[in-house]
């Protein structure tokens, strides 16, 4: 390992892997990783107190520096910040950021010691297996290749600890996840990367990804620099060659074809719950109804402003509607069709905070799916360099053998667990302040929202 080991330049060095350096320097690698890991963790601890004024280049309209730093703090303490950081909303000027919750006057709120139930069922049909999660959220699909195996493991450990779920994304199912299989959703996406009969058979939930919010209508992108040998092997592809998943499923021309897909999964694993992940086009209401009739138990609406992987900027900003508009449209339409009570609607794509979760549910979702918020808890600064060269400089969205060591799975799982705990605390408070005892009673309660735009 050279003195510049942490700054090997992308492709050329990535190809040659960690052995580019001589024998002597290679032996320094663990020490270098240890040193930088320690400094990073120290930084994650210090920065929420040092404050945003010292980080002028951090944050954006959606994820302000306050939101990033408060997420770091929650990931450390398991509690919402009390140091003045704005941890509830961003500064985007629309959507969740202009909605507020209509809390009761303090003397009418429920007592702090009262029991509040945050659990939601993932199967609302009267048949098939019953799965209930104790918090109204689970982890989004992030593929091996887009993130490191360590990060996947951390997410799986957290899902197990919280009796909820995380998703493989479309990059295959590393063997190390098998220990957590009861909490890992197997995703089947258009590229079919790493999809095997046994990973479908092992899963309690199988998710069909039709589209994803960050690049609706375009299919997944994993740029060549991140297709390491390990990633290529998992995906049964060629190392260092970019992978563009086709779009859409080329066997789906109709709702009937969609049902055929779900039937395949049911044939392999009759016990599995079926989730369908779709983006948010103008006819999202019809897509939702179609998914219900095709047999889906869970409908994942993925809004256009979220996403963790590489995506064309034009797709993120321009194609499909934000989740704040899609949720009420789907909720109302499913209700009008008389089927709302039989499908679980999970919202994703721009859910950043506990307050976003509550607002999404008040707009009509049953629960939400977290992606970026989890990465931020593990140290993401939202710099957006995930797809470049060796990937994330913090080792999160990277499969670089050296960089990925910066994230140790137990440390990361601890941070995720703390974020979940903080969200749980806040959601309980939110419900009490709204006068509710069950999160399920918040679904579709737009009367509990205030528009402040």
């Amino acid at each position, binding site marked *: 390992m050279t003195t*510049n080991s942490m700054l090997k330049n992308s492709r050329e060095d990535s190809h040659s892997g960690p052995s580019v350096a001589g024998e002597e320097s290679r032996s320094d690698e663990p020490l270098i990783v240890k040193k930088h890991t320690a400094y990073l963790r120290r930084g994650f601890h210090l920065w929420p107190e040092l404050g945003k004024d010292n980080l002028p280049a951090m944050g954006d309209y959606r994820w302000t520096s306050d939101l990033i730093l408060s997420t770091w703090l929650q990931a450390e303490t398991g509690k919402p910040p009390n140091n003045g950081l704005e941890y509830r909303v961003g500064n985007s000027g629309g959507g969740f950021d202009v909605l507020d919750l209509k809390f009761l006057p303090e003397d009418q709120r429920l007592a702090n010691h009262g029991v509040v139930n945050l659990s939601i069922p993932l199967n609302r049909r009267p048949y098939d297996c019953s799965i209930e999660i104790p918090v109204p959220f689970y982890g989004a699909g992030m593929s091996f290749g887009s993130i490191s195996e360590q990060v996947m493991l951390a997410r799986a450990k957290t899902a197990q600890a919280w009796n909820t779920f995380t998703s493989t994304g479309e990059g295959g199912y590393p063997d190390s996840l098998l220990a957590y299989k009861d909490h890992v959703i197997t995703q089947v996406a258009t590229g079919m990367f790493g999809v095997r009969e046994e990973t479908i058979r092992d899963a309690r939930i199988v998710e069909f990804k039709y589209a994803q919010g960050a690049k609706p*209508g375009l299919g997944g992108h994993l740029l060549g620099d991140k297709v390491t040998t390990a990633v290529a092997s998992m995906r049964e592809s060629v190392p260092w060659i970019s992978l563009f998943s086709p*779009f859409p499923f080329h066997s789906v021309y109709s709702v009937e074809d969609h049902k055929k897909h779900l039937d395949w999964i049911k044939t392999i694993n009759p016990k599995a719950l079926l989730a369908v992940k779709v983006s948010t086009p103008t006819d999202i209401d019809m897509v939702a109804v179609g998914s219900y009739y095709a047999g889906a138990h869970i409908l994942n609406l993925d809004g256009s402003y979220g996403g*963790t992987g590489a995506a064309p900027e*034009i797709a993120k900003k*321009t194609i499909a509607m934000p989740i704040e508009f899609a949720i009420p449209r789907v909720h109302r339409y499913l209700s009008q069709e008389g089927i709302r009570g039989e499908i679980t609607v999970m919202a994703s794509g721009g859910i950043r905070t506990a307050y976003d979760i509550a607002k999404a549910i008040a707009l009509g979702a049953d629960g939400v799916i977290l992606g970026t918020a989890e990465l931020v808890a593990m140290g993401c600064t939202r710099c957006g*360099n995930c797809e470049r060269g060796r990937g994330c400089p913090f080792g999160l969205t990277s499969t670089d053998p050296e960089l990925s060591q910066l994230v140790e799975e137990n440390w990361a799982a601890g941070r995720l667990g703390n974020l979940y705990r903080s969200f749980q605390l806040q959601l309980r408070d939110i419900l009490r302040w709204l006068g509710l005892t069950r999160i399920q009673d918040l679904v579709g309660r737009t009367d509990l929202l205030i528009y*402040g735009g």
Partner: protein
Amino acid sequence: MYQRYHLETSSAPEIAPFPNRTRVKVQKRGLATHLVRELVRYRGNRAVALSRPCLYGVFSGPVGGFAPRSDSCVACLRCTVEYPEMVRVCLNPEHLRLGDSYFTPGHVDTVCYEARTGRVPVKGAGYRGRFGGAGWDGMWTDMSEIVRPTRDGIHGREFISTSVDIGQKPPFLTFDEQGVVTGRSARTFSMPIPVLFDVPPPSALSPKFVQILVSAAQKAGTMVVLPVGVLKRLKLEGRAIVPLVSHKDDNALEGLRFTPLMIELEGWNETLFREILVRFADSAICLRQDSFSKEDLSKYYHSGVRVFHLTANYHGFGRDGRFVLDLIREAHAAFLEAGCRDEVTLLGSGGIIAAEHVPKAIICGLDAVGLDTALLAALQARFLGDCLDRQSSGFQLPRRLSVDWGVQRIENLLASWRDQLLEILGAMGLREVRRLRGEIGRAMFQKNLEREAFAGIKGYDH
């Protein structure tokens, strides 16, 4: 033989200094102390003690962090996260001065990236901007979850056409008894991309810049609108050139040595229009105006105008203060109501500064868009103050501007924007850009979506 339309891209790095978004500042005394401490801590192991936090080479100079290379910074912030006491990553004030209040530094960054590489900008970690907003920002485009006819088009297995027809398109043909076409026939020509170059501002009308525009338009198969006086002075001619004439120009078309595909008439003047019609019977005649009322459009249509160029200022606002998006929709709707939309061509320019604006403008009703400030930004022109309109705006092009470099930058920009247009069309499952024109049903507007989603919520009374 049929050839698929292709724009040849190649790297065209900036020729003038381009300020990076961030600057990295390191406390030198703190760094020196830190290094000594690290060397002691790691017992002189330089590999460990001197290992640096940056993957992008900011500290890879001969003296490392003592002279950080800010131009390499990608604002990942890892250095400042690791060393909050020593390293500070600040926004670069020079970068913040790029562009103007409409063409923001972010837009300049994107356009320069596109012009430098010809690639589609791709980034991780989701969308960063405002939720919506006025103008183009309050509009989203549709997509389809299932198979549409040319789903594979984006990746090249099938074909999505970006070709548009400009000119007079009669709704039907009439034939005499011998089967010979009588009456009006189509007088159209095709452009392989729905983009042309609008008239440059006087402050940038240097011969070199004009030559870049003409050559780039020729290579891309599109057109550039240029004042007829400039054409004559520079002795320019060719299929790619659209002479702009005004009734103020004396003998405007005298001495024009070629028959243009299209001639633009600046402001309505019936005498001049008739004169052009007679003298250039094979050319399309386009009426250029900064606003059209419904009555105007009807009047000009009945006078024989079939190509309209709706212009807004550089910030996208028309003379009456409305945004170009609304003006386009109004003009398109007026032709629809009159039942003659398919007979006319509607061009538009002003405020089109990003790839996403092209499909959005076409959805609103344009056949093709005109580029103005985006071309200048691609060539690293400096905006001198807030650049609102063509006549009064100042732009300073780089001193080292060369024709070859400029042509490549513009070709790269067009290639990138066309690829992004294909992404949008592909996501919708549309086979050709012509089918996108006026497809308002494939667009979503913030005010409509908000009304539907938030109606009934306390405080929402829009």
